[in-house]
């Protein structure tokens, strides 16, 4: 009988009982004796010189303990927030890396930049006093959009970064691309914008700093996806606290989508201030603060060209992208529009030559960094929009054009012209599953039926591939990563056979407590109730890199497998001793340790008990205990891929787009928990649909004020905006280089969905002659596009 909590079982998420009943423990739920509250004074200007700060009145306000500024941090030799990835420009020069202090010192560079912090007995007192801090600003002109920031004479965000250019990077073979374009029978061209997004994790960021004068130990509890990374960055680079005196805890975290990877200034401020005021200091962002200060996502402006021969075979791809970095470099910002973007521009296609140029630009806006998909949705959107343009221009069916250019499964492993080597993938198979699933042949009939109701209908595809796992360390290091990218795990059997797994991965909604426990249940036949997954506390878990880039199962899960290998090796030795058999004769079957060819067997529980009560134990060759640790550094990225197909209906009278069907066929390699995978896909799709139709972060182009600073104006997708999804996956193409054969599923939905939706929207509008529309396809944008292309109405 299959293990009901083993691999492949749709086990319900164990963590949901506490999440859904309000019993989670989030950072803001934690309160310490003597705790104080921090409220930040933030710049109301996008760009201003700070000429003076007068805190005298604020200090007199009730309950105020301290008002601290950048100058106080400077006096305490607090450093700049470090950037974790270094990019070099075409000319070999390193990227410009201006300092990014937790509290601004002499200049505020975006609306929301921290200028001072007030610490008081209560949060309301801190807020009251924050209004009394008198900051003298000398307002400066702001560079708000990336295009304007690059113009000659634009205001400089950093005086020593000429032209606001952080780096001018490239990848690929320009000469080969030029040669291919010279031979092309047809060139499809597209200008497109991948708009800026606000991450909107359900739980706002929060941080609680504590300092123990007796031990000299600092503790930071924070909303982080990677507490060890925060400990390393903040301890070593910002505050100068050695690891053994700094504990970072990321307890229950309510969603991140990338925005909680980064080391934020508030974390350093509360940690530093807790020692300074001698009491715990807590800060919790209000939603308005989240809009202003969480690192944003996307914000690319691109031009792309695809060269084809007369039969529609792709010959070469040329891409030029301008990426907005915001005012400072967030932790992993430089890697997103480079190694997580341009390396994915081959997509699923065997395009032989690709050349990409990326200019990264400083602007007076909040920093931009990884957001669900991080570079890969931008790549997928660009390629897949361009392929649909190519299909429309050449008259080749869009499914057929893709099929014609797919890297065939037989070509795996496949070296792309942009650095990556795909290990597995059968892209034609994904398409073969998808086409009947969406009744592609029946589209014309559905379109006619929509037309009878006065609606336009379109169908759009996105065939995506992404690189997950973010590895190996040596490759990432060669590409500029200033960190390793492995994962850690410890599998600890207790004397009575229950298990605690310590993982360096971090769950902030992904269901690790269930999926990871299934790995142990499968391997040792332990019911998952007897397996506890511990994560998020640097004082408990081995040094680990955390969760982002759909890496937890592929890298963190593999580390657990490696630790379980070690447990099994030791358990076999113990079993051999207990059963008086040769070690070589011990087999593991259905979680039992059996002497081959006999009915002599032990459970892992029997062995664990002996390991901790070693009365009958090979003490001369083995140590007692059953507790093993492993680190796993992958050999390659993993490459989830799939085919997403979207159908939309558009009301031409209002421009409203309705997603009427969405099918996702995905190859995630081996699937451990289908229920959780489906949930991840659903969430990802909604996020991708959100970018396509609803979400748009808008700054005023002159003043740099955030216009979409609340849900009144920033439109999140809601349940009634999306259809019931059709989700399929196949497991025929397991990853070849990790022990589980898994690829990752966290970002896939977001990566494919935006392109599929926009392709469907443009297809629906094609009868008006519309060939492209930038996201989000809001009702007015769609209506204006229709109007522009309808002379009779335009004249009205």
């Amino acid at each position, binding site marked *: 009988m299959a293990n009901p909590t083993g691999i492949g079982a749709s086990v319900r998420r164990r963590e949901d009982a506490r999440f859904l009943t309000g019993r989670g423990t989030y950072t803001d739920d934690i309160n310490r004796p003597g705790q104080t509250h921090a409220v930040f004074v933030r710049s109301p200007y996008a760009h201003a010189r700070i000429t003076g700060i007068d805190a005298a009145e604020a200090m007199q306000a009730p309950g105020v303990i301290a008002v601290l500024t950048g100058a106080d941090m400077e006096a305490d030799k607090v450093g700049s927030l470090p950037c974790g990835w270094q990019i070099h420009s075409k000319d070999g020069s390193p990227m410009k890396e201006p300092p990014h202090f937790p509290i601004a010192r002499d200049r505020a560079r975006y609306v929301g930049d921290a200028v001072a912090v007030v610490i008081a007995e209560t949060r*309301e007192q801190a*807020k*009251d006093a924050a*209004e009394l801090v008198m900051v003298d600003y000398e307002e400066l002109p702001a560079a708000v959009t990336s295009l304007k920031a690059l113009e000659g004479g634009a205001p400089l965000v950093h005086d020593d970064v000429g032209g606001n250019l952080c780096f001018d990077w490239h990848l690929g073979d320009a000469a080969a691309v030029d040669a291919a374009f010279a031979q092309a029978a047809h060139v499809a061209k597209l200008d497109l914008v991948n708009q800026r997004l606000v991450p909107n994790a359900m739980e706002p960021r929060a941080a609680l700093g504590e300092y123990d004068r007796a031990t000299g130990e600092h503790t930071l509890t924070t909303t982080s996806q990677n507490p060890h990374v925060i400990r390393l960055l903040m301890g070593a680079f910002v505050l100068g606290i050695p690891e053994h005196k700094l504990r970072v805890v990321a307890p229950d975290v309510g969603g991140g989508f990338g925005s909680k990877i980064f080391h934020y200034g508030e974390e350093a401020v509360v940690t530093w201030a807790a020692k300074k005021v001698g009491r715990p200091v807590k800060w919790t962002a209000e939603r*308005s603060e989240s809009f202003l200060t969480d690192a944003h996502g996307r914000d690319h402006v691109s031009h792309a060209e695809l060269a084809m021969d007369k039969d529609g075979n792709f010959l070469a791809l040329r891409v030029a992208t301008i990426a907005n970095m915001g005012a400072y470099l967030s932790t992993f910002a430089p890697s997103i529009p480079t190694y997580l973007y341009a390396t994915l521009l081959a997509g699923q296609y065997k395009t032989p030559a690709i050349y990409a140029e990326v200019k990264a630009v400083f602007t007076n806006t909040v920093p931009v960094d990884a957001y669900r998909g991080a570079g890969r949705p931008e790549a997928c959107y660009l390629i897949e929009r361009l392929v649909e343009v190519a299909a429309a221009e050449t008259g080749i069916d869009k499914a057929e054009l893709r099929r014609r250019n797919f890297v065939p499964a037989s070509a795996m492993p496949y070296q792309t012209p942009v650095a990556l080597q795909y290990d597995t993938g059968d892209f034609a198979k994904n398409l073969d599953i998808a086409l009947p699933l969406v009744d592609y042949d029946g589209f014309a009939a559905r379109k006619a039926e929509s037309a009878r109701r006065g609606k336009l209908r379109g169908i759009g595809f996105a065939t995506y591939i992404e690189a997950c796992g973010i590895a190996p360390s040596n490759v990432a290091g060669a590409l500029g990563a200033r960190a390793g990218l492995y994962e850690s795990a410890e599998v600890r059997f207790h004397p009575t056979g229950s298990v605690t797994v310590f993982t360096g991965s971090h769950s902030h909604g992904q269901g690790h407590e269930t999926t990871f426990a299934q790995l142990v249940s499968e391997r040792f036949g332990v019911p998952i109730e007897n397996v506890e997954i511990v994560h998020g506390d640097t004082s408990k878990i081995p040094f680990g890199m955390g969760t982002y880039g759909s890496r937890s199962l592929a890298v963190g899960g593999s580390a657990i497998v490696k630790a379980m290998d070690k447990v099994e090796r030791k358990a076999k030795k113990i079993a051999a001793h207990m059963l008086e058999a040769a070690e070589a004769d011990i087999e593991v079957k259905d979680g039992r340790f059996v002497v081959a060819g006999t009915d002599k067997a032990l459970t892992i529980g029997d062995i664990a008990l002996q390991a901790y009560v070693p009365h009958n134990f090979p003490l001369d060759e083995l140590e007692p205990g059953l507790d093993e640790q492993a680190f796993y550094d992958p050999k390659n990225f993993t490459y989830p891929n799939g085919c997403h197909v979207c159908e939309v209906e558009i009301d031409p*009278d*209002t421009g409203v787009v309705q997603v009427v069907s969405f099918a996702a066929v995905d190859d995630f390699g081996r699937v451990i928990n289908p229920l959780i995978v489906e949930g991840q896909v659903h969430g990802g799709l909604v996020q991708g649909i959100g970018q396509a139709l*609803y979400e*748009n972060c*808008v700054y005023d182009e002159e003043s740099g004020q955030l*216009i*979409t600073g609340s*849900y*009144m*104006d*920033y*439109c*999140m997708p809601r349940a009634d*905006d999306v259809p019931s999804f059709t989700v399929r996956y196949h497991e025929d193409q397991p990853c070849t280089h990790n022990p589980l054969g898994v690829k990752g599923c966290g970002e896939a939905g977001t990566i494919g969905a935006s392109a599929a939706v926009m392709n469907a929207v443009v297809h629906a509008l094609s009868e008006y002659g519309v060939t492209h529309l930038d996201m989000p396809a*809001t*009702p*007015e944008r769609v*209506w*204006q596009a229709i109007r522009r292309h309808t002379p009779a109405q335009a004249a009205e």
Partner: protein
Amino acid sequence: MYAFTYHRPKSVADAVALLGQFEDPKLLGGGQTLLPTLKQRLARPSDLIDLGQIPELQGIREEAGGLTVGAFTRHAQVAHSETVQRVIPALASLAEGIGDRQVRNMGTLGGSICNADPSADYPAAVVALKATVRTDRREISCDDFFTGMFETALEPGEIVTAVHFQKPDKAAYAKFRNPASRYAIVGVFVAVFGSEVRVAVTGAGPSVFRADDMEAALAQDFRADALNGASVPAAGLNADIHASADYRAHLVRVMARRAVEACG
């Protein structure tokens, strides 16, 4: 939120008396606009006078063939009232479309019309249904009540107690929601009283207004196609990142057509 003193009077007279006592008092209806404003520290009233415990402000009843709805009636109560559904179903349906469930369970009719948000739904119903706004001291015709963006004919200290809606022969409300806030970008309430047609437009302009051309066209010929030649000029309409004035003008006609069609 700044500190304030909270009061919960049991009668309109007590509420009026309280209003006169303090430096900067504010009436609390359902709080769907006021509370977020307070939380963002954009208002600093000295005193908050909660109208939620005043029996005179509650209740829905038939009166003179129409409906009288107490000022403190919540949107959900209007939406689910069998009386409203029977007498003026379009009003129940408008209430069911306000905001989301949480807003409908808190927000009140009086709070909505006194706030006079240009994108609120109720003003369209008040104007189209020839309503009379009753206060602690007088009755105000719907055509005089809304005077501008967030402005009404109410005098300082005046409390709305109820709204009397006339029963139309037929009526319908069509709304184009802001996808983010779900307020009305454009909402059009069409009501027919004998030979009179009233078309009230909310969301599009600084304040609710009647579309005279459309009313005239529909009075001649009550069909959606009768609106083909009628339009609302874009000049003077609201414009924001969600909808330009042109788009709003266009949507007024589309929503008016839909409301006419929904009238049956």
